[in-house]
């Protein structure tokens, strides 16, 4: 019988990665002087599990690597080795290596063997210094062959006398005798002389002894193996019948030539699968082959409570449906009941939608978890002292959004550490505490998740930024910008004021990419900063990528959707504030700045209800760091809409980010604020033919 072990790989990888996270966070929390023994045990167990699993499931390279790690941790947990900062650093590096190796095994890819070997060497070096014991061997000892059999070997004579309490270990002498018999031709003689009288006979005590004569061609190793478990609970002697003088007799317990079951079993047990026989060269490719299949599957672990709640809601939906189904007689239609039923249906659908969305949601801690390590390493590298605070890590968001926000967050945190928080001496001069604080916070607000990265560092120097922007021609020499606008300049491509572009964050390719990534997720990013005190970056993301909160607007007979997240405000036009620039744009003065007016009907070539500005409304939207006022005829309601891709169904259209189907069956386009603004700038006068859709 042979079982395909590969089916258990997925779970092994998942639990191993989880184990590595536990190891890492526990290592980071470890107090160097007074390590918590429970924490060390937890770290040890995690490494031990990975080692055990990797051996069982055929990932020997990982197993070997983990072996040294485990030995170090074992010594730490039984007190024979101190927990030093150096050791913790090496252990953290080992965690990184293991992550690499596990990912490689899971994806069927390669890992950097040199880097891993380096870390392995560091582990061995740690093992060699300190600790009360000699460095442990990294390879299991090869099973030693028994002494050469005397020439002219006769049969084996085996004396087996179990101690009285043998049964208490769950061992059975009869089983042992059976195993001996299976080794070869044999004769067994029982000695019952120790049996007491019936009255004193204790069925839980072993009295019998046996002498077994076994075929001399059987290897001594095989015989020892049979007795392996009961060595200490029985008197065992092994002699050669023909040559009693040159006996290989040994007392129980003294001889340790019995090899571990793994290596010894093969000869006796013919059903070996051959997995253990691997040379060093084959190892890595085998690890890869073993793991290759699990790469494709992307899965989520879902709390079973969420699934149960989903099942309940579907049940309620069925009830509502059957209730509505009963109202289908046109003669006796009960409007009251119908209304009730529809209201219930709406409730059911909404709850179902929320419930399903929640299944795809994971707490942001999955992303926040990598930051303690990152902050520790980076602050050490930069020579700064930083305390990381995390708030709201249980806030949930969609799995895909979570994955895509990971890199931008890393960049923002690195930025805050690099350019935000100052070195201790500078902080002291400014009267700040030597240790800077970096806070990562997440919370739900409306239908969005808000993530904030704030630091009490240097903040943004508006003057320096403005100067740089002027230098680059991004801002006119005489142009005056409010402070917020100046701060937003950092999101401009190619913008960096660091004199030496540090390799940590600022090559000037960072912030604009971050902003773009967030925009792609349907979110927005804001920056608030006070020079000398610190900065806060606020990211607002929709909870799901497929659904959007939209404001319906009407232009002529067409309905459009403006994402709520892009809307700043809506207002009626005051003609006094309109300023026309000859041959180009119309501008509207809004609280100290001028924003362009976008005549939507021109851009999309629609018949407006009225082309007079005073008759319509403008919806002030923000996109790409710019603002504009979109002229519309009427504001309709707000609702959640399901985003359908225009690209996959038609083609990409500038100014439109997608489409949706409204309740009455008509198609409404979803506006892309940034795209519209760009369009308007390019061709304010010549409208672009739009995919005009007739109301159904």
């Amino acid at each position: 019988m042979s079982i395909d072990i590969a089916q258990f790989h997925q779970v092994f990888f998942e639990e191993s990665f989880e184990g590595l996270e536990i190891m890492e966070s526990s290592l980071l929390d470890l107090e160097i002087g007074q390590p918590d023994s429970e924490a060390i045990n937890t770290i040890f167990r995690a490494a031990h599990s990975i080692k055990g699993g990797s051996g069982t499931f055929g990932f020997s390279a990982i197993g070997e690597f983990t072996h040294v790690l485990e030995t170090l941790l074992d010594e730490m947990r039984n007190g024979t080795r101190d927990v030093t900062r150096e050791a913790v650093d090496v252990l953290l590096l080992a965690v990184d290596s293991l992550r690499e190796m596990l990912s490689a095994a899971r994806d069927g890819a390669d890992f950097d063997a040199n880097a891993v070997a380096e870390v392995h060497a560091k582990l061995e070096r740690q093992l060699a210094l300190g600790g009360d014991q000699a460095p442990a061997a990294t390879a299991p000892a090869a099973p030693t062959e028994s002494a050469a059999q005397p020439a002219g070997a006769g049969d084996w004579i085996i004396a087996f006398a179990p101690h009285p309490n043998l049964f208490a270990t769950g061992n059975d002498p009869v089983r042992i005798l059976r195993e001996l018999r299976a080794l070869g031709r044999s004769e067994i003689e029982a000695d019952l002389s120790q049996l007491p009288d019936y009255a004193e006979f204790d069925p839980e005590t072993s009295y019998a002894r046996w002498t077994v004569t076994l075929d001399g061609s059987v290897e001594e190793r095989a015989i020892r193996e049979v007795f392996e478990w009961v060595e200490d609970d029985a008197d065992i002697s092994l002699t050669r019948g023909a040559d009693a003088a040159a006996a290989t007799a040994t007392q129980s317990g003294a001889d340790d030539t019995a090899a571990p079951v793994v290596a010894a079993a093969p000869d006796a047990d013919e059903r070996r699968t051959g997995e253990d026989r691997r040379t060093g060269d084959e190892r890595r490719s085998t690890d890869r082959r073993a793991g290759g299949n699990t790469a494709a599957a992307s899965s989520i672990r879902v709390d079973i409570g969420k699934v149960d709640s989903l099942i309940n809601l579907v049940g309620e939906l069925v009830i509502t449906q059957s209730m509505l189904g009963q109202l289908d007689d046109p003669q006796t239609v009960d409007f009251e009941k119908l209304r009730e039923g529809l209201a219930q249906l709406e409730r059911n659908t909404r709850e179902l939608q929320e419930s399903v969305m929640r299944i795809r949601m994971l707490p942001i801690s999955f992303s926040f978890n990598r930051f303690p390590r990152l902050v520790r390493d980076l602050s050490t590298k930069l020579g700064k002292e930083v305390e990381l605070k995390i708030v709201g890590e249980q806030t949930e968001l969609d799995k895909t959004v979570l994955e895509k926000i990971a890199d931008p967050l890393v960049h923002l945190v690195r930025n805050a550490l690099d350019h935000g928080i100052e070195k201790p001496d500078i902080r002291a001069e400014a009267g700040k505490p030597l240790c800077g604080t970096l806070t990562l916070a997440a919370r739900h607000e409306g239908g969005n998740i808000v993530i904030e990265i704030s630091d009490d560092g240097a903040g943004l120097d508006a003057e320096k930024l403005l100067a740089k922007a002027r230098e680059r021609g991004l801002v006119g020499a005489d142009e005056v910008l409010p402070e917020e606008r100046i701060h937003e300049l950092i999101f401009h491509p190619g913008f960096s004021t660091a004199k030496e572009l540090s390799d940590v964050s600022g090559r000037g390719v960072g912030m604009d990419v971050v902003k773009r990534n967030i925009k792609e997720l349907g979110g927005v990013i804001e920056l608030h900063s006070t020079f000398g005190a610190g900065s806060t970056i606020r990211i607002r993301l929709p909870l799901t990528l497929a659904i959007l909160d939209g404001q319906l607007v009407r232009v002529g007979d067409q309905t459009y959707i403006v994402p709520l997240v892009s809307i700043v405000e809506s207002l009626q036009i005051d003609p006094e504030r309109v300023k026309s620039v000859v041959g180009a744009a119309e501008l509207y003065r809004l609280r100290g700045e001028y924003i362009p007016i976008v005549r939507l009907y021109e851009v999309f070539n629609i018949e407006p209800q009225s082309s007079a500005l005073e008759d319509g409304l403008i919806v002030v939207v923000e996109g790409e760091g710019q603002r504009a006022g979109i002229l519309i005829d009427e504001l309709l309601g707000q609702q959640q809409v399901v985003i359908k891709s225009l690209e996959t169904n038609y083609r990409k259209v500038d100014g439109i980010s997608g489409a949706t189907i409204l309740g009455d069956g008509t198609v409404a386009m979803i506006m892309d604020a940034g795209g519209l603004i760009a369009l308007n700038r390019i061709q304010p006068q010549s409208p672009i033919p739009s995919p005009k859709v007739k109301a159904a």
Partner: protein
Amino acid sequence: MANVLAVDDSASMRQMVSFTLKGAGYDVTEAVDGQDALDKARTGKVDVILTDVNMPNMDGIELIRQLRGLPQYKFTPMLLLTTESGADKKAEGKAAGATGWLVKPFNPDQLLATLSKVLG
């Protein structure tokens, strides 16, 4: 068929052991740590116990020690799943009353062979 109690804090190991044994016709009860195993062993009698050593909430050796104290498990075969470097664990295990051990890594066939040996 015999009832096996499989104890290991690693889900993948439990899965592998469980799958292997069930495929061979055994009934399998799984436990995630020593305490869980002790509770389950008390509620329903099992015929053989397979346990990992290192687990939170009571390790395998303590589990065996506790089980041996229960009258119904005085003579039940109990096997420790140890790593090859755990020579001291074997001794400790024996002292606590373990029947024997299976060395990790082991493959499904070795597991079945050992189990059929032990259960006769």
